């Protein structure tokens, strides 16, 4: 019981830390959401961890066209011009590596717990 409580506290602390660092904010208690910026040919933050069920929105802040394209084919945005966004809700845990199909050296990984 005590162990479970401790584990629970530890988990809560970890989640709180993750929340403060990564800012997946549960908006209205329904779907947690978070944002990833595309700036200067980089996904920001470069790596992120979210909970299963989180809706992730990428926003392109570059003048150049970019995409958000899963390496394994799980998701693929259309071409995103400046200010345009792409959202995907991650339901299954795992590590999702993705890139910009127009600049494939732009890479990142999103971890879903």
């Amino acid at each position, binding site marked *: 019981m005590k162990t479970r409580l401790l584990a629970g506290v530890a988990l809560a602390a970890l989640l709180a830390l993750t929340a403060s660092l990564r800012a997946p904010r549960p908006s209205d208690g329904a779907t947690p959401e978070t944002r990833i910026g595309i700036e*200067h*040919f*980089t996904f920001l933050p470069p790596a992120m961890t979210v909970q299963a069920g989180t809706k992730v929105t990428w926003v392109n802040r*570059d*003048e*150049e*066209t970019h*995409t958000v*394209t899963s390496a394994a084919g799980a998701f693929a945005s*259309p*071409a995103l011009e400046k200010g345009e966004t792409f959202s995907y809700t991650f339901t299954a845990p795992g590590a999702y590596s993705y*890139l910009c*199909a*127009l*600049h*494939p*050296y*732009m*890479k990142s990984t999103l971890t879903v717990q």
Partner: protein
Amino acid sequence: MDRRGFLECMAWVGTGVVWTSAGGVLSSRTLAHAGEASAGGDFSFVQISDTHIGFTGEANKDVTRTLQEAIIAVNALPTPPAFVLHTGDLTHAQKPGAFDAVAELLKTVRTERVFYVPGENDVFLDGGKEYLGRYGKGTAGGRGWQSFDYRGVRFIGLVNVLTYKADGLGSLGPEQLEWLEDDVRALPSSTPVVVFGHVPLWAVYPAWGWATGDSERALGYLRRFGSVTVLNGHIHQIMQKIEGGITFHTAMSTAFPQPAPGTAPGPGPMKVPQDRLRRVLGLREVTYVQGRSALAVVDRPLA
């Protein structure tokens, strides 16, 4: 600085100078004398690249117009080109209607035929379905790569944008490499070879993906030839490199320039003063003279 270093350095400002390769040694002449090369009634062809139709960014508000200007320049060449090579990124990010617009514009080029290879902008959305639907006919297995002979010169068009290696570089893939090996196997080493593709086949700047991961294997099949000219686009600026009998040339775009390697946060469109734009956009004319291994390469800015 040695001669090669000097030449590579000069390539950065090489616009308007004709480089002639003979037996691996380059010599240059100014544009005023370039016409002499075609005096023997041989042939020339034109390379255009990175037309990016559909682009609407600050770096060039009218990419249709600059392509039209490039076409006017092609049609005004003293020696009409036997054909035109388009080295990819016909469209900007496969914008709706862009392929149709490019096709309509290029109908006005006075030449027998236009050959294409795709850029990543032409294929990323649908894995090349629309591009190959339009331009795959007559290519190897409909996959986009192809070769043809013209007056004793073997032309080879390669596709290096359909798969990305893990390192974010262009990639030819084993199937195409096997095709290439087979394609050149029976050719005498004296045959001049022209290779054209989108992403450079030499490591211009891998940090920006300006390289093809498996190009070394392709070049291995070509090293025995006395004259190999490799023409690429993708980086929207002129660069040259010599490696034995192989000379590499990257081309200007007709749409917008890109920064020199490492001089910006990324390889995006570079905004230059309006009065300078047409000096960094342009086309390339390549002249072949029979009996000489030399191919004369002339980069012609729009202004």
